[in-house]
């Protein structure tokens, strides 16, 4: 569906309003914008089609989304008002992200020395989780308190927040401005073309799902029916014998006994999910929940594979010096790869949870782009 500047504008205003009044204000604002556009067209004889320039002029006259949303909010009855709210949200996301990342790292470090049993993992997980909740309450509480104090201490319209450009991460300073400057800054026309696009987070990328299905089917066939193909091979002579192709299986029997059934469940589950999603044409709440569960199971399997019994078997490798070399290099490499995979899956899990709860993903780009978010 094609979206216009009006759609993007209305969305940005609504994003800053309480949920209770959002939908109604958005509907009214959209109707009023169309009235203004219709009037503008009538002034020109009503024969030309509306252009983007017409919409830009109307939106500039109305004011930036932050200004208009501020007018809709109850005056002086908030803990943190529209002046600081965008900034507050960015800091909350940054603190939440930093604490989450720190605790994920802490979790991995505390699991590193464990034996890989479910009981040990559960104890370590709950210890870290308890610390995480405490850190969140303390961190976010401090941020909220700081902003609530700023809201009351800094006189309204006398201070503006701005980002210090020389830092690569959002570092924000408050600058006192004189009345004349405030007026000047307010009168400076904002550019509606800079409004963020409305992304369709529930759209299904057909090629992405199709490629995923193909790879999962290949993995199912390979690991279940041709496990002998997963290994190493070389051309050469062993113990003075003829020069020929030699090969050896790479995966230990425990992989097939313990992990392959779990991987089969995951792969079949993901194939089924992709087919359902393709048939429905859009991501829905039910499919997102199934996706979340499957990602959680992936994280569990990756953890088990990283910290459980050795997955690789080098017993069949000849000659002996090559076996020793491979035994030294391969297992640590595989463990590092699995730990990275586990961390990435945890990150994906958090992202999926955020999307499920808030209806859209929060990107690092948004986190870093203070100016775009605050409209300053």
């Amino acid at each position, binding site marked *: 569906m094609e979206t216009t500047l009006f759609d993007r504008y209305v969305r940005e205003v609504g994003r800053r309003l309480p949920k209770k009044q959002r939908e109604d*204000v958005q509907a*009214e604002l959209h109707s*009023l914008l169309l009235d*203004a556009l219709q*009037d503008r067209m009538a002034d020109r004889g009503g024969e030309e089609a509306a252009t983007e320039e017409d919409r830009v002029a109307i939106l500039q006259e109305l*004011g930036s989304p932050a200004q208009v949303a501020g*007018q809709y909010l109850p005056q002086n009855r908030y803990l943190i008002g529209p002046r600081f709210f965008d900034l507050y949200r960015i800091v909350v996301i940054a603190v939440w992200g930093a604490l989450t990342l720190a605790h994920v790292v802490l979790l991995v470090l505390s699991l590193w020395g464990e034996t890989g049993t479910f009981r040990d993992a559960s104890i370590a997980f709950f210890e870290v989780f308890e610390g995480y909740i405490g850190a969140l309450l303390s961190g976010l509480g401090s941020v909220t308190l700081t902003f609530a104090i700023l809201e009351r201490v800094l006189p309204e319209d006398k201070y503006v927040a701005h980002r210090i450009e020389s830092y690569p991460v959002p570092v924000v300073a408050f600058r006192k401005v004189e009345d004349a400057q405030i*007026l000047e800054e307010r009168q400076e026309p904002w550019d509606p073309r800079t409004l963020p696009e409305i992304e369709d987070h529930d759209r299904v990328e057909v090629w992405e799902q199709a490629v995923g299905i193909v790879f999962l089917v290949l993995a199912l066939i390979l690991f279940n029916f041709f496990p002998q193909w997963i290994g190493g091979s070389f051309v050469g002579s062993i113990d003075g014998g003829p020069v020929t192709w030699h090969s050896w299986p790479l995966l230990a029997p425990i992989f097939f006994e313990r992990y392959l059934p779990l991987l089969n469940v995951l792969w079949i589950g993901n194939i089924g999910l992709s087919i359902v999603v393709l048939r429905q044409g859009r991501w829905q709440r039910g499919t997102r929940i199934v996706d979340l569960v499957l990602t959680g199971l992936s994280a569990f399997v990756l953890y088990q594979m990283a910290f459980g019994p050795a997955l690789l078997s080098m017993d069949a490798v000849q000659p002996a010096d090559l076996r020793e070399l491979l035994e030294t290099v391969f297992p640590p490499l595989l463990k590092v790869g699995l730990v990275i995979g586990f961390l990435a899956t945890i990150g994906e899990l958090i992202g999926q949870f955020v999307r499920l709860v808030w209806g859209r993903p929060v990107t690092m780009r948004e986190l870093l782009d203070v100016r775009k978010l605050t409209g300053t």
Partner: protein
Amino acid sequence: MDGPIQNLVNELRRGTLVLTVLSQLETRQYGYSLKQRLSEKGLEIDQGTLYPLMRRLEKQGLLDSEWSHETSRPRRYYVLNDTGRKTLDTLKEEWKALTSAMEDLLGKDEENGNDSL
């Protein structure tokens, strides 16, 4: 007009906003029609200020509103209710008293100014 002076003018106009809007809502209006009506009478009010103000007045119990689907697209219409009418009457009285006092004050200032010349 210089920035600080423009600020004072804006401040002065802001004080009359509620009375201005209430005075035009004896008959039902939607946001853009009210903006046009005020504009025709020589009063330009920012749309970004007018539309939220109508909502606030409704929330304060002075206006009633309803969505109308009679036209090509749905519009939200606002109209004075009983409380709004009583408030308008009170504000009108205040306005008359204020303008009378101000005319008196400004008239005297002008006279004083003329005397000093």
